[in-house]
């Protein structure tokens, strides 16, 4: 259970990364959000068996993580963490779709395998760019961008609190786990009884704390509306970034760059 500490600090780590000061971090959150949405849309819109046209799209996450100084290892770890879910979805394709499609050096690839790999690539592209968006903008920054893009405030505020209380829950869990570890001296089995009462305590503590947080918000004038400073301005760099990125996406979407480059090389 001590691993929980590490997991928790990892959530916080995403936040810490967001407070770096690089070119990517300084971009207007709205521009990054829109660019990422366009990116995801483009990647998802390819037909089922597409492989080579997807490859050039890796430029975007690679650029974001390099220019934003976000350690690629961190993103890869998070990807691995959620990959089993996608793998489950994708792995059924080869089972059902067995028509041969490619013949590579005598090894036959069925359409199912191709679409399975295609799904995994899309997953890697979209999730990593979403993670990078948060890592270079901060979650609240993304919320703020949503709000300024006229997403209804109710949703934005909900999202914002979801995130905030996630930390409250994680913090409380960490405290309880730490307190238990401190006095069990490495004995592995806490027993079901302690486990259940811990969950109960956790629930109570989280609810009460959320309530106290809510009250202290009220005591500073909160009345259901989050007012945020509108300090982000869209500048020249932002426009250049968005236009370049989206133009590239469109080119990648229409032309098979990987194949063209391959043919040029031959």
């Amino acid at each position, binding site marked *: 259970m001590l691993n929980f500490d590490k997991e928790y600090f990892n959530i916080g780590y995403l936040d810490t990364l967001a407070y770096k000061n690089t070119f990517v971090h300084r971009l207007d959150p709205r521009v990054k959000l829109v660019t990422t949405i366009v990116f995801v849309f483009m990647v998802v819109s390819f037909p089922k068996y597409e492989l080579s046209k997807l490859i050039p799209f890796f430029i975007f996450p690679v650029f974001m993580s390099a220019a934003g100084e976000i350690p690629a290892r961190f993103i890869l770890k998070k990807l691995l963490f959620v990959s089993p879910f996608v793998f489950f979805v994708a792995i059924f394709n080869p089972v059902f779709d067995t028509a041969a499609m490619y013949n590579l050096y005598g090894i036959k690839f069925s359409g199912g395998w191709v679409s399975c790999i295609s799904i995994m690539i899309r997953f890697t592209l979209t999730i990593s760019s979403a993670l990078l968006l948060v890592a270079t903008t901060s979650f609240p*920054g993304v919320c703020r961008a949503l709000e300024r893009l006229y997403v209804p405030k109710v949703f934005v505020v909900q999202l914002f609190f979801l995130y905030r209380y996630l*930390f409250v829950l994680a913090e409380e869990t960490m405290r309880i786990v730490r307190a238990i570890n401190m006095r069990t001296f490495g004995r592995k089995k806490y027993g079901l009884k302690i486990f259940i009462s811990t969950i109960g305590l956790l629930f109570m503590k989280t609810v009460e704390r959320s309530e106290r947080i809510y009250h202290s918000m009220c005591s500073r004038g909160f009345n259901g509306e989050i007012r945020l400073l509108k300090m982000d301005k869209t500048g020249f760099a932002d426009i250049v970034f968005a236009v370049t990125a989206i133009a590239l996406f469109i080119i990648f979407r229409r032309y098979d760059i990987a194949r063209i480059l391959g043919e040029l090389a031959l």
Partner: protein
Amino acid sequence: MSHHIIDFKDVHFTYPDGTKALDGISFRITHGESVGIVGANGAGKSTLISHMNGYLLPAKGTIIIGDMHLNKSTINNARKTVGVVFQNPDDQLFMPTVFDDVAFGPLNLGMTEERVVERSNEALNTVGCSHLKDKPPHHLSMGQKRAVTIAGVIAMQSDILVMDEPAASLDPKSRRQLINLLKEFRHTKIIASHDLDLIMDVCERCLVISDGKVAADGATGELLTNEQLLEENNLELPLSLQNR
């Protein structure tokens, strides 16, 4: 100026589990007074403070803030008048960055953005936390968190300032700065603390709370030198008065 008054009349409060925390408390604090609230652990200080801006509402008795009766419909106005720093800073920092947190109150008071930025910077400067501006609050040390919560309330420039254990976990230099800051603060202020030297330094008047009742109410200099009274309330002479 009548609107800086806090008046408690026979206030009772019982927690849902049956703990009787306030048992008929009455006092009146007028404009510009600085009042210390002292008493043993569990005496009811924090409960009392939670009543000052309507976090808790009394089961019986009345509370008057300025010229308003405190009840559900006046809570929001009362909160503009009374700025409260609660005992636990973790419950009070909820915004993504320190700066956003300090700006939260002023923004809600409907100030222009320039004013908000200016005030928040000022408040952060006052508590010596300007360098923490962009950090997420849950990554701060305890003392830094407390300093930031104080900045958040200072930035609102409320007429009445209420603090629960403001000096706990502050290092000696920050504590001294806080005392100087509080001394400069001309408005009404109410401070609950076990730091009797701080109370001696900052407050002219003092309330001793015991089992949810006012055990004594008078000049700080007199109450905090009354050894019998202190003894009865789990307190002792302020350090600055010991060994003389």
